[in-house]
């Protein structure tokens, strides 16, 4: 009987202690960016194209055990450009590459393409899947990267403009650099040649399509090389210079877009982080208090039925009462959590309203520029074709 009472009291104690603990990530391991220290010859500097990340986040329902993800699609699309530009910045700063640019697609010819999709982005956690592939079609890697922001990431003075998930982008940039470091000079030069020949074959297929062939696994190989003094190659190089100018102009559009998005997106993520933490804490407290309250009630009833003394009866009544209060408190926490979720939705709608015209403007501009450039490229292709035919006496 004594033992039974002790168990009941212990149960009441445990139940009352429920809901007192918190779980906030105060610091995360920050990965520093590795920078290339060797001076590489120009012929071995690979150009990198970072493709806007796909907004792969699927809206989550509450049944997943987490808060529903009601982030508007506009924000997800904008994040695709913004986060890819952050990644581009990290890769560029690692100093081991040639031109590093954000691209709308893989159409522009670059030596390495980095693409991916956002798996989770809620201010607290960022998870992305990244793939790196070279111009020959070789996949360098495909990995998932996840980082949880520290609560201080949003509390630093003058924190705007600093990326709370910089460590994640540094990890991707480091992996990319590590892979490239394993390639010898000849391999780097081979990749650059393949890119040039791909560009050449796109503009003058009559002249250059035979220089590349598909090898094992569909990967491109160099079949032969054009003569250094090939006049068409000189044209191709002139055109490629202009292609770089086009890519640079696109980059400026993306930079401006990111510049305009910096502040509202930072504050949105910061507030979202707080809301997510508050929602999770309330959900946890709600669960613990409800469970703890029910346990206290059960223990109180057990204590009362097993106690003959008036003190025991009083204790049992107190335990049942405390349990009831806890259950009620748990229900209250649940409704508070709902309020936070509503605040999250409102935050999302507000940012989406701010970003939507900017996303539309960005897409309009890049599409117009790309359309104009493509029209020009088509003209160049036709002129090169005609020059080729004239030189062969076909015209």
């Amino acid at each position, binding site marked *: 009987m004594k033992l039974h009472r002790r168990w009941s009291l212990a149960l009441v104690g445990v139940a009352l202690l429920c809901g007192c603990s918190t779980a906030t990530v105060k610091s995360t391991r920050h990965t520093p960016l590795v*920078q290339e220290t*060797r001076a590489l010859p120009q012929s071995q500097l690979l150009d990198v194209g970072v493709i806007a990340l796909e907004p792969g986040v699927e809206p989550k329902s509450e049944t997943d055990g987490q808060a529903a993800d009601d982030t508007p699609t506009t924000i997800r699309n904008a994040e695709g450009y913004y986060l890819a530009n952050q990644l581009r910045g990290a890769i*560029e*700063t690692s*100093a081991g590459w040639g031109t590093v640019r954000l691209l709308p697609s893989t159409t522009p010819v670059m030596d390495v393409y980095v693409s991916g999709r956002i798996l989770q982005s809620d201010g607290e956690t960022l998870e992305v899947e990244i793939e790196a592939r070279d111009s020959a079609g070789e996949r360098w890697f495909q990995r998932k990267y996840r980082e949880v922001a520290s609560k201080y990431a949003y509390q630093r003075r003058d924190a705007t*403009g600093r990326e709370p998930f910089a460590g994640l982008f540094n990890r991707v940039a480091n992996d990319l650099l590590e892979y490239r470091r394993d390639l010898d000079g000849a391999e780097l030069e081979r990749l650059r040649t393949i890119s040039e020949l791909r560009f050449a074959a796109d503009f003058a297929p009559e002249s250059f399509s035979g220089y590349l062939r598909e090898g094992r696994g569909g990967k491109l190989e160099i079949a032969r090389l054009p003569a250094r003094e090939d006049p068409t190659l000189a044209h191709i190089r002139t055109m490629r210079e202009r292609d770089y100018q086009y890519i640079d102009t696109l980059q400026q559009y993306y930079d401006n877009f990111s510049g305009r998005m910096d502040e509202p997106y930072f504050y949105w993520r910061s507030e979202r982080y707080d809301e997510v933490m508050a929602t999770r804490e309330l959900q946890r407290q709600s669960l613990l208090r409800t469970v703890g309250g029910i346990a206290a009630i059960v223990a109180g009833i057990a204590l009362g039925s097993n106690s003959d003394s008036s003190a025991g009866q009083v204790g049992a009544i107190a335990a049942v009462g405390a349990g009831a209060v806890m259950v009620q408190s748990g229900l209250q926490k649940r409704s508070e959590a709902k309020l936070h979720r509503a605040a999250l939705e409102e935050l999302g709608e507000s940012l989406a309203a701010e970003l939507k015209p900017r996303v539309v403007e960005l897409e309009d501009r890049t599409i117009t520029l790309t359309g104009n450039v493509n029209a020009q490229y*088509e003209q160049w292709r*036709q002129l090169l074709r005609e020059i080729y035919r*004239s030189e062969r006496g076909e015209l």
Partner: protein
Amino acid sequence: MRTCQRHPEQGARQLACCGLLAMLLASCQTTPPQEVEPPPEPTTPAASATIPAAEQTPEAPPDTAAAPAAPQATPVEPAQPAAAGTTTEEHVQTLERELETSYEEHDAMLRDHQASVRAEAAEIAAQRAGRDGGGDPDEEAFEQGGLYEGLPGFGAPPPDTEAGTGTDGGEITTAAGDDRAGTASTAANGGAAGGQVGGATVPADIPDGRDDDIVARQLREAAQMEKDPELREKLWDEYRKYKNRQAAQ
């Protein structure tokens, strides 16, 4: 006799057939192929319309092909020896001139886009400066990674050297400038490998620095003036990184 009577009828039928054929051929020749494949954007309609016409009329006179302003007026007569006096070389030259013109159009179009995008960037920078209280945007770039911390010219105390006494607060002394001139000349004289410049060692892989901008120059000077070998090597590393980034741009 019978034969004689049938001749006029046959002749008339043949003439009619020939006439019909000629009409059909004529209509085929005047159909511009550009109608079938219109260019995606109307930015260079004149030039892009010229090319297919030239394809259809290989012997078109070079002057006509090089005149993108009036492509519609180009006569489409594939059978006519319009370019009888034009050699292949001349024709290719004409096409290359057209290509050059097209490059200029492309450059002008990009310049327009770049002008608008730069204006927008300046507006964003001005807004940001207004919010931040007019802070120097370069400062933030330098802060990232602490790349230039402790270097002369960025507000850090100068390294202890005989010539370095005047580098406080971002000032670059004339002595340092002289050192740079010395670097270039030393390199030019073939003394780059492990050469001593103003008492400093320049690693063999460091270029002569003739194309250094202000940041690279300051990094170079700091490395050259640094006495601590470990710190000096770090400074050279920073110099290499910076030059790599520049080469990439």
